[in-house]
């Protein structure tokens, strides 16, 4: 790059970047400040005198307490965690095997099956939720975590398969052939040679699958009904709004605490997350 004067650097790079970061992060700041702000300060009209929106001098834990004592928030966290973990594991298992088959084996229709996977990757959940709700009811899975554990893989498997295909294709064929010459069966060569090399890919797809299932909303909203079975996004939506009344303090506390597990997973594996994300668009 050809660098200009210092003021140009500020005007063209630093200030826009600071503005971007500010706008992208402000809602989270707002979530945090609302969580710790007492109700008395919260419900003060925006044009009231000495309304001080960006800070509070009387931080309180009352909203978090409300969340744990008056709602099943802890239960929702557990449900969401359980559902996200199990559906991620199922999807990884299926996706790794299918990705291996599609990327490294020669068989009839391999190409067209790859396309089918890519197309299902593009099927949005909102297209099928009504008939799927009926099927879930017919299978007697309604209002159980299994209704989500079994349906989340429908959008996670295509994603994992697609990502894993990219990783498997990048592994040289010679690696596997060496093992085969040394007498390993195809199955053993896959399990002991190829899959271990693809671990970064498995980690990336696992993390993204976990965040995707934590984020899922419409299936959870439609398939679950009793308060104790709900996931965090659905529980927060349905139990902290009564009629027209929004319990903003606990709502923001729930949003904040409900985001923390995802944020922790993400912060530990940022590089894997980013490489998975960019790998998924490279195709």
């Amino acid at each position, binding site marked *: 790059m050809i660098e200009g004067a210092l003021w140009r650097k500020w005007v063209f790079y630093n200030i826009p*970047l600071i503005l*971007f970061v500010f706008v*992208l992060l402000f809602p989270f700041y707002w979530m945090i400040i609302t969580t710790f702000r007492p109700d008395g300060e919260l419900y003060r009209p925006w044009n009231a005198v000495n309304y001080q929106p960006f800070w509070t001098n009387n931080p309180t834990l009352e909203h978090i307490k409300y969340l744990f004592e008056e709602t099943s928030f802890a239960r929702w966290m557990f449900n969401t965690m359980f559902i996200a973990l199990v559906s991620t594991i199922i999807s990884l298992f299926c996706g790794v*095997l299918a990705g291996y088959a599609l990327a490294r084996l020669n068989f009839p229709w391999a190409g067209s099956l790859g396309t089918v996977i890519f197309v299902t990757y593009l099927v*949005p959940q909102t297209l099928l939720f009504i008939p799927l709700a009926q099927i879930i009811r017919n299978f007697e899975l309604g209002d159980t975590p299994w209704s989500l554990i079994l349906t989340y893989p429908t959008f996670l498997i295509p994603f994992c398969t697609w990502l894993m295909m990219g990783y498997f294709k990048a592994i040289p064929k010679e690696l596997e052939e060496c093992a085969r010459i040394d007498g390993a069966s195809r199955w053993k060569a896959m399990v002991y040679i190829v899959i271990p090399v693809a671990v970064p890919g498995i980690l990336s797809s696992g993390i993204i699958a976990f965040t995707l299932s934590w984020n899922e909303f419409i299936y959870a909203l439609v398939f679950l009904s009793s308060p104790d079975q709900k996931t965090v996004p659905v529980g927060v*939506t349905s139990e902290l709004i009564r009629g027209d009344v929004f319990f903003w303090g606990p709502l923001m506390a729930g949003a904040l605490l*409900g*985001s923390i597990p995802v944020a922790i997973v*993400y912060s530990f594996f940022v590089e894997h*997350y980013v490489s998975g994300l960019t790998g998924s668009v490279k195709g």
Partner: protein
Amino acid sequence: MAVTAVAGAEARPIPRLRRLEDERWLALALLMPTAILLGLFIAYPFFEGVLLSLTSQRVGVPGEFVGLKNFVKIWNDSIFRTTVWNTFWYTGVTTVFKLALGLWLAMLLNRHFKGKALVRAFILLPFIIPTVLSTFAWKWMFDPTFSVINWALFHLGLITQRINWLGDPDLAMTSIIVVNIWRGVPFFAISLLAGLQTISPELNEAAAIDGARPWNRFWYVTWPLLLPVTMVVMLFSVIQTFADFQLVYVMTGGGPANATHLFATYAYQLGIGTGLLSEGAAISLAMFPFLFIIVVVQLLYIRRVETR
């Protein structure tokens, strides 16, 4: 097809003791779990959905075959027409802004500066944090009485009285669009940044030595090389936006007066809210032809760009 020919040529008699040694049997075994789950929970519901949309079923009423009556009905439904218009407007406007802002942000990040990794990690947060939860933060920021946005605009001297962001149909749609852009820009930025990093800086330097101005360097060097990645990112984003549900459900629930419905929220309101299952299924399925056309057009375009 080439693949079939190769596989056919290899079909010599093989001892069947170890069936998994045969690539075709191994492939079949490896693909089986995926095929079962996707068949059971994608292909089967799709088929059921088509059948359902052709009946008059409601909650508690089995209904009977009525042909295309549901589709005729929604076609004549003025709310549905608003919904179709909304969905296209929402998808179009947000995609243009997400692309422009995402590209800008990617360019800002595509250089060396202190704390780059940290900034990159933080700007992805809107994309990582569960949409419903972050949308609630926005809804609270847009609250008619306690809006911090109104407060800021008032103190900047831009407004003199409150704006009821979610109470007015046009403003409500604009607010939803803002939130969608906010959520989508990080995805565009990070993906396009990865695309930018694969472009050798030497190309830009060579163009600069030849006297190309910055704008021309972008337009004739960077942009064409970035186009394949851009198209794939757009494909994902357009489909996700077109079929969006969470954001509108939380922000307005389709209101005020059904003015901000998208396909998915209207299908939910009719199918689950009022129990008109078959009509809801018909509205959901009405998305399919549009999605199909979008996917086909974009895939053809991507292929053309990539083989160029």
